[in-house]
């Protein structure tokens, strides 16, 4: 069933959107009109510049409200999401015992130039995050966290050495799409070394979605607000299914 939606301010389908941006124009009537025309040229109606602030160096900041005529049919939107159910630690341990019957080795790292370990630590380290213990605490996992700024080569070498089942990669810095470069490089190296199909490749970080992960050739991706339980359940169930096949 089609379900066409538009932004909502205070009346169904009024299309109201707030915008804010800088333009290299003067803070005068012409600059303001330029900002308004720009908004109109993006296809908005009823563009109202509510604030114009001089930023210096020839720039001006505009805050605006406008009504978009764009809409989107929600029923047409298919997003790939991690579909395995989420179990708590005890349930996961039990599940692995029953379905896989062996320990799972997981190797994790922030790769390349990235030193933001808080995210992957939240998933892997004993103490975990927000009242969920990390993978180290699970009975079913042998979790090795290599920490910050680990070259892709070293991560793969360690995974090969430990005969890992899963690789966890974190990427937090995204400026100039450096995370895409780094994640792509890792997968290419893994393919070249024949490791890609031997283990699950999972990436995570605040700008990672499952959708993006799959596009980049990973098995799964996890973004903001992920808990160890999400990742643990996904690994447990996916590996068990693979083994069953």
């Amino acid at each position, binding site marked *: 069933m089609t379900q066409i939606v538009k932004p*909502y*301010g*205070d*009346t*169904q389908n009024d299309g*109201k959107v*707030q915008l804010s941006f800088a333009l290299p124009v003067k803070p005068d009537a012409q600059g303001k009109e330029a900002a308004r025309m720009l908004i109109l040229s993006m296809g908005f109606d009823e563009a*109202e*510049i*509510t*604030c114009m*602030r001089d930023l210096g160096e020839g720039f001006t900041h505009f*805050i605006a*409200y406008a009504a978009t005529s764009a809409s989107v049919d929600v029923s047409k939107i298919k997003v790939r999401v991690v579909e395995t159910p989420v179990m708590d630690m005890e349930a996961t341990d039990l599940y692995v015992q029953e379905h896989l019957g062996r320990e799972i080795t997981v190797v994790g790292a922030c790769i390349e130039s990235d030193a933001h370990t808080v995210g992957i630590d939240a998933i892997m380290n004993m103490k975990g995050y927000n009242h969920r213990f990390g993978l180290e605490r699970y009975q079913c996992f042998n979790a090795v966290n290599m920490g910050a700024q680990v070259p892709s080569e070293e991560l793969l070498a360690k995974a090969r050495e430990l005969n890992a089942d899963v690789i966890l990669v974190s990427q937090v810095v995204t400026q100039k799409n450096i995370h895409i470069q780094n994640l792509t490089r890792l997968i290419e190296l893994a393919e070249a070394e024949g490791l890609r199909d031997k283990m699950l490749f999972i990436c995570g970080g605040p700008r990672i979605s499952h959708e993006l992960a799959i596009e980049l050739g990973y098995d799964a991706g996890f973004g903001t607000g992920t808990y160890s339980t999400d990742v643990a359940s996904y690994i447990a169930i996916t590996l068990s299914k693979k083994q069953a096949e």
Partner: protein
Amino acid sequence: MLKLDLDTNLVSRARAAATKISSDFDWLFDGYSSVTIERTVLRLMGIDGATEDGKPLPNLIVDQLQSAGALSKGAAIWIANAMHHESLSAQQVAEKVLHGELQLTALPMAEPQTLYDLLASLSSEMLGKIKAQKAQREDFYQKYGPRREPAIYVIVATGNIYEDLIQARAAAREGADIIAVIRSTAQSLLDYVPYGATLVGFGGTYATQENFRIMRKGLDEVSEEVGRYIGLTNYASGLCMPEIAAMGAIERLDLMLNDAMYGILFRDINPKRTLLDQYFARMINAFAGIEIQTGEDNYLTTSDAIDKAYTVTASQLLNESFAIKSGVKPQKMGLGHAYEIDPEKENSFTYELAHALLTRQLFPEAPVKYMPPTKFASGNIYKTHLMDAMFNFVGQLTGQGVQLLGMMTEAIHTPHLVDRSLAIENAQYIFRAVKDLGDNLELSPDSFINRRANSVLKEATEFLEKVAEEGMFAAMAAGAFAEIKRPENGGKGLDGVFERDPEYYNPFMDQMKKELGL
């Protein structure tokens, strides 16, 4: 705890002056009535509905009685006589009048005592209903726990009651404690209350009894869902002050904008009309356990918040003394105050802290209604959001009763769904962050804050004493309030005020006075 060292002598002088001012109006309260008071009586007798072109039946009847020169006895007695004579309900009488099938003043007059008895039973019935609503509210608070302090109060103002409802329910779920349905522009000046559910308003939604009902029902549902009683408020203000108070009492509104002088000063409504109407309106609010909210914020949207800070204090004291006359309890006096200081001013926060503490400490039992920055809100939503945060900070630190949340789009449009949600997020964050900060702090000896509060109090006292001496109507005519001149016989609605006949009878006022111990 931040505690001002207020000059107690000033406090008593100021209260004495305010009491003197309000006591000067007994001639008005006891000797006059108004068209809206009489319409209120009709509504309380159960008359509702409107003509095809939207004229409410209470207006129709009161207009007829007025043209017939019969209104000075009060509307009640005429309807009671018709009910008795025709053996009809009040509503049936009204409908007959509407269809021209009945001429109220043409019927033979029954024995007064018969009519008084009939009216007594009608009045007990309706006042019983109102008491039941009051009890219901108290039960809800009992069941769900008391309201937070400051309570989170947000407005809805889409113009369409059904959109308002969506926005109100969303706000309640996010943490709002009280929803105010803002009224369409200038409803104040309508000498009737529109009828039915309304879909178009400008800058707000018409206050109608049906709209009250729709909103109350929707909020009762959410209250149950979230386990928190969501208060509802509207405006018992303007030319229909007591009628709206009565509608609110019947539909279980919990608070009402209801200022003794707002209509005079800010809507150019006749002074006598306003004071008289508020007297009865407040009595209804007091009886129904409705918290009144006064409009001191209005002084500061037109004048400077520092220079004219004393006008807020003076108005609070006057509102208090008029409220006492109508039987309103201190715990139900939501006196107003507003954070309207120019953000460019050095120490704007420090000044405001002095003013907010002064209000809090002068009226320790009052659930003060604290209003956000509006005048200096600009189209810069980020800046306005910060000003609102400072306002929320002071509200929590000084323990105000009700925090009317500021919206970051204040200078732009009536609030969008998102704006209100961000305003609630703002308040919740700040309230939590500074929760017990006040317990850690004291004022330094001879602090600027203390000196400032006392100097505002002093100005207010001197102002009130001057008004007490001159007389309030004279002072108003001379422009003493809000820098606006309002002559006693100027303004809208004077022709709706009339002197009571010795036989005048208002069963509701009598019974409420008795029950309120007035």
